[in-house]
């Protein structure tokens, strides 16, 4: 099968969904033909679908998301892009108070079928306003689905599923997942929201990893295999709703769990996964440990930036401390 990057996979998902459903419209800063998206996810789409459906917006994050909310309530299926994940802070009212709650507060009268796409993640020396991973903010708001793909196949299938979903979805991309290549079929498929993926099967430990950390965990697991340690890797893919079954089944099987994410340690998704495992499979667990980003804003200088995020070496060390 052909191999494409995550950016290409996302682009295909948008293109195919826009061909399939004329209600799908794109909103965002510099997503049109002049710039093609800060990370080129929307490349070529204005050329194919026109400026009515691919709309370059003013730099007005709150209005971008708000416009998507209003459009979604009235029959369109907007996909809004926030150019950098940290900037969701400017649109939090529209995401958390409006998109998430309007269905509920209207007693189920309205639907808000929109997707908010945004790239999180460190690694480019973009410093603290362009690098944080904030996916955990959104799982705390009932009414929002939260998706976080780690590879090309999932990126395409999850974005399609998100666009077709009638709930608002926060779609968390990662700047350094964008370039990862993977096999992606030509034909139409979706990856249903709320289903985790066992990215690697193993016996000795369950590694729950998200986003870019899946790639790092896979590399660490390959190296650990040579030391005789067999790692199972579970990628939740959707953070809300969380696939508790798959997580619990793997934890039960290995009895040892390491949860890895790039987002900083305090208040991250790891706390939520731990809660789930403790609630449901506590008596099967010998160990549960978290390896997350350091509790600091993402620094600029590459030496510091690299140090704050979990890397392959640190993953191997953490696994050995648990298993051996």
């Amino acid at each position, binding site marked *: 099968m052909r191999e494409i990057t995550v950016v290409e996979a996302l682009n295909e998902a948008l293109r195919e969904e826009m061909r399939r459903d004329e209600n799908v419209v794109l909103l965002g800063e510099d997503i049109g033909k002049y710039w093609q998206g800060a990370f080129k996810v929307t490349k070529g789409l204005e050329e194919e679908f026109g400026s009515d459906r691919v709309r370059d917006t*003013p730099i*007005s994050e*709150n209005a971008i998301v*708000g416009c998507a909310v*209003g459009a979604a309530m009235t029959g369109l299926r907007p996909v809004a892009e926030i150019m950098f994940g940290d900037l969701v802070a400017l649109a939090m009212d529209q995401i958390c108070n409006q998109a998430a709650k*309007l269905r509920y*507060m209207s007693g*189920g009268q309205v639907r808000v079928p929109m997707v908010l796409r945004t790239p999180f993640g460190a690694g480019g020396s973009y410093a603290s306003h362009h690098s944080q991973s904030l996916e955990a903010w959104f799982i705390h708001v009932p009414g929002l689905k939260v998706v976080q793909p780690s590879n090309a196949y999932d990126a395409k299938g999850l974005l399609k599923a998100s666009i077709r*979903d009638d709930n608002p979805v926060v779609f968390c991309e990662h700047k350094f997942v964008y370039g990862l290549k993977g096999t992606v079929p030509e034909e139409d498929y979706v990856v249903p929201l709320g289903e985790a993926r066992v990215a690697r099967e193993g016996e000795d430990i369950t590694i729950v990893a998200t986003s870019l950390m899946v790639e790092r965990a896979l590399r660490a697991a390959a190296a650990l295999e040579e030391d005789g340690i067999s790692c199972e890797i579970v990628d939740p893919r959707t953070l809300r709703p969380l696939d508790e079954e798959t997580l619990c089944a793997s934890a039960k099987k290995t009895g040892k769990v390491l949860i890895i994410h790039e987002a900083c340690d305090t208040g991250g998704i790891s706390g939520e996964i731990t809660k789930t495992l403790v609630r449901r499979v506590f008596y099967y667990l010998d160990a549960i440990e978290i390896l997350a980003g350091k509790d600091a804003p993402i620094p600029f200088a590459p030496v510091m930036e690299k140090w704050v995020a979990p890397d392959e070496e640190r993953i191997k060390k953490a696994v050995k401390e648990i298993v051996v």
Partner: protein
Amino acid sequence: MEDIEMYKKMLEIRMFEEKVYDLFAQNLIPGTMHLYMGQEAVAVGVCAALTPNDFITSTHRGHGHCIAKGASLKKMMAEIFGKKTGYCKGKGGSMHITDKNIGMLGANAVVGGAIPIAVGAGLSCKLKYPERVTACFFGDGASNQGTFHEGINMASVWDLPVIFVCENNLYAMGTRQSLVMNIQDISQRAAGYKIPGVTVDGNDVMAVHEEAQRAVARARNGEGPTLLECKTYRHKGHSRFDPAKYRPPEEVAEWMARDPIESFRDKLLDKGIPEEFLHKIESTVEAEIDEAVKFAEESPLPEPEDALKDVWVIE
């Protein structure tokens, strides 16, 4: 809409609010309440220029907008009571009444929060329903929010069919307009976005209606948004139990003397509408409101577990 119908709508709002105020004082209604009394000419004048398919967005002070757009008094009252039969099944209350079937996209309790939502509805109008427009109601206070500036700019640059209706009642809670902006006419802000900005006497329903019709016609013609500022005044405090002591008594007296309903009534009488006929309307409205209260009172409460419904769309 005929002027008699407009008169009836204004009365519905006034009497609905008076009733709600009463019930509130008797502790029969939970939460807080932002009454629309005094501003009736704005909602009615604007909504009379709309069709049932057009969209509106509203604010914390939204009862008037709902009624003017044609919402059911019964379902509104039931919602305010927190009953299962209310518009939002008791999940929204006074500040979130929504009626999708008449294009009422919801009252909104974040000041300025609905402005970009109206822009999005305007985008749907432009792309999907070219014959429709969206009217967006908000207060003087809301016009200091970023959403106002972001939303109007976006609607302007995209020529969206949105009528931005600023109800300038001179106060945002206890904050006088002059304390927080150096202009008197908020419509001036339209110039910054190159859209028409109009200030109108918001207590004169026909004047509001005329300007609203002009703005709606522009919008339907694809000529883009208008900012329509309606100068008005709230008769009561900002919310529950607010005695509004921050307003000078002379100012209050001056505005109370310009009651939008009284003055419209006088005009109708001058036009030769028999007083008897107006009395009849008045008693009809009174009966409708009594019925709404009865419906609300007799309606069942939601089950506590209903709190978990409607969070998600589940296919």
